[in-house]
């Protein structure tokens, strides 16, 4: 069983995820350290995105607990959970922008809820966040008026609105062209270096796993548990699990 430390942003202890009687993953134990770019990887359907939903309280664990800075999130009261979630920003796979609001309104909604900023200041912050993701000038567009990649970046701007300690990103490069995807990776590293943000990234994009990942966990779809943990490059070169190495080398290494 993993030791829970108060300075670790996220600790997952003995987590079992299930839909009804169907167990998706069992016995997950890992800690995300301060300033990590933590990659959750694994084949399609292994439960990567579901793990993220568990971290955010959108799904309840069948067993086990999630801790933020040493404090149990799973056992917290709803009000406390809400406070804990306020330190976390989330970028969903499709962006999940609120379709009835403009980009500026999307970004400033959390500001309006949780800060005392005046409307004009909120708008300035929103414009700044949108500029950070390369969307300056798009403040008054509705999500349906911009492309999928732009929606994704706007989603990141919204996730960053409150300068969260932790940013969870589901499939950052899905639907992005190689250059935008690279820019997003650079943005992630930049945010980590400048603001000290900790990242949890669900992805199976090898290029970005090796480029930015400082630590990772591998969820195996077959055995339904985590089979490896460590920096991705190290896992690729030294893991003794053939499935992990096959995954990290696009199937080029068949045996160890």
């Amino acid at each position: 069983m993993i030791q829970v430390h108060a300075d670790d942003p996220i600790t997952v202890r003995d987590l079992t995820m299930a839909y009804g009687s169907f167990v998706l993953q069992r016995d997950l134990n890992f800690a995300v350290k301060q300033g990590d770019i933590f990659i959750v990887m694994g084949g399609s359907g292994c439960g990567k995105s579901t793990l993220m939903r568990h971290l955010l309280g959108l799904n309840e664990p069948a067993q086990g607990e999630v801790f933020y800075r040493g404090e149990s999130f799973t056992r917290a009261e709803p009000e406390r959970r809400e406070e804990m979630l306020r330190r976390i920003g989330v970028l969903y796979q499709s962006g999940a922008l609120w379709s009835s609001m403009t980009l500026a309104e999307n970004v400033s909604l959390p500001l309006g809820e949780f800060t005392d900023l005046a409307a004009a200041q909120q708008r300035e912050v929103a414009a700044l966040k949108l500029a950070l993701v390369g969307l300056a000038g798009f403040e008054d567009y509705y999500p349906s008026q911009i492309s999928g990649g732009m929606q994704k970046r706007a989603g990141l701007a919204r996730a960053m609105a409150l300068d969260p300690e932790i940013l969870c990103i589901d499939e950052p490069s899905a639907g992005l062209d190689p250059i935008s995807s690279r820019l997003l990776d650079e943005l992630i590293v930049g945010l980590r270096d400048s603001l000290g943000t900790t990242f949890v990234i669900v992805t199976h994009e090898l290029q970005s796993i090796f480029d930015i990942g400082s630590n990772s966990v591998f969820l195996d779809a077959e055995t339904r548990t985590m089979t490896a943990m460590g920096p991705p490059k190290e896992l690729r070169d030294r893991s003794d699990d053939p499935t992990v190495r096959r995954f990290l080398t696009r199937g080029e290494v068949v045996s160890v």
Partner: protein
Amino acid sequence: MDRISLSTTHTGIPTARPASLDVERSGDGTLVLRLGGDWLLRGGVPSAEAVEREFVSPPRVQRMTFDSSALGAWDTGLLTFLTSLRPLLEAHGFEVEREGLPEGVRALMALAEAVPEKSDARAEGIEHGVIERIGETTIEIGASLSEQLEFVGSATIAFGRMLIGRARYRRADLMLQIQQAGVEALPIVALVSFLLGLILAFVGAIQLQAFGAQVYVADLVGIAMARDMGALIAAIVMAGRSGGAYAAQLGSMNVNQEIDALQTTGVSPLEFLVLPRMTALFLMMPLLSLYAAAVGILGGAAVGTGMLDLSLTTYYQQTVAAVGVRDVLGGVLKGGTYGILIALAGCLRGMQSGRSASAVGDAATSAVVTAIVAIITAAGVYSAVFYVLGW
């Protein structure tokens, strides 16, 4: 990799030669399948039966090979034929030798067999007995009832928070919902309730004329529209118009993870999305009920003056004398109730919606059905209670 692009292999060949299959057997138990002609889906391909027959008759088949020297174009038709041989080969326990097949076919078959079939992935085809199904349905009904109760409870709490000014929602959203459920619904509500007034008047006129009491058509239409029908018809129109729309809106927001995003931002979807819709209908439905009643009475007046030779003044005076304040207030109360029911049904089904296009459609359908059932039930309860109380 010859002919690997399936769809293009046969373009440009206007007439396909029919596919042929010769099964030849040599002395040492080798079965040779000679494939000839074009094995294309659209032209039809031979069945595996001829091969199966060979396995039944002695001597025993030891191995199977292919000769495709006479094979023309091919597509998925050939691949399905090869796949259909597999159970046969597995039953007899030997591997097929595919060297005689074109390279493209071998590559595709290897690809199809690369990942073994997931044994627990196929949908279960187990038939359940009647008793089992009754039990399952009962459990489902119980679960959905408790879900509905929970939703109603949370919505009530959200409403309470709004009253003390602590709910988080956007005023602009509320105004937009009020506009959509109010002004924009006026034309359709007017049309339907005018016609309903007309129908009620005709039904009454036929009966009352027999007694020379046609002036009481005004009483009939007035009381019916003010007490019950105005609210009911407005509610049914709004159930289709707004209830279905709410379910579709919230359902597609669910598909797009917008509701998840609200939750993780710390904004209650119930307050942010459901509250404005519920409030809008709760405020607008009583007004729409009054409006529907008034327009319905106009419809009655059209019949009264046009067909029954009553003067407009007579009809007006008769109506004013018949319809009391209590009738009107009853209609308003019912309208408000129906409004809440429609909003609850629409929002509940939308929030429960699955994450696919067809699930959103189901949610919209189910919202309208739930709303109409709830409205009619409430109307029945109100009628009984009002009767007992003598109102």
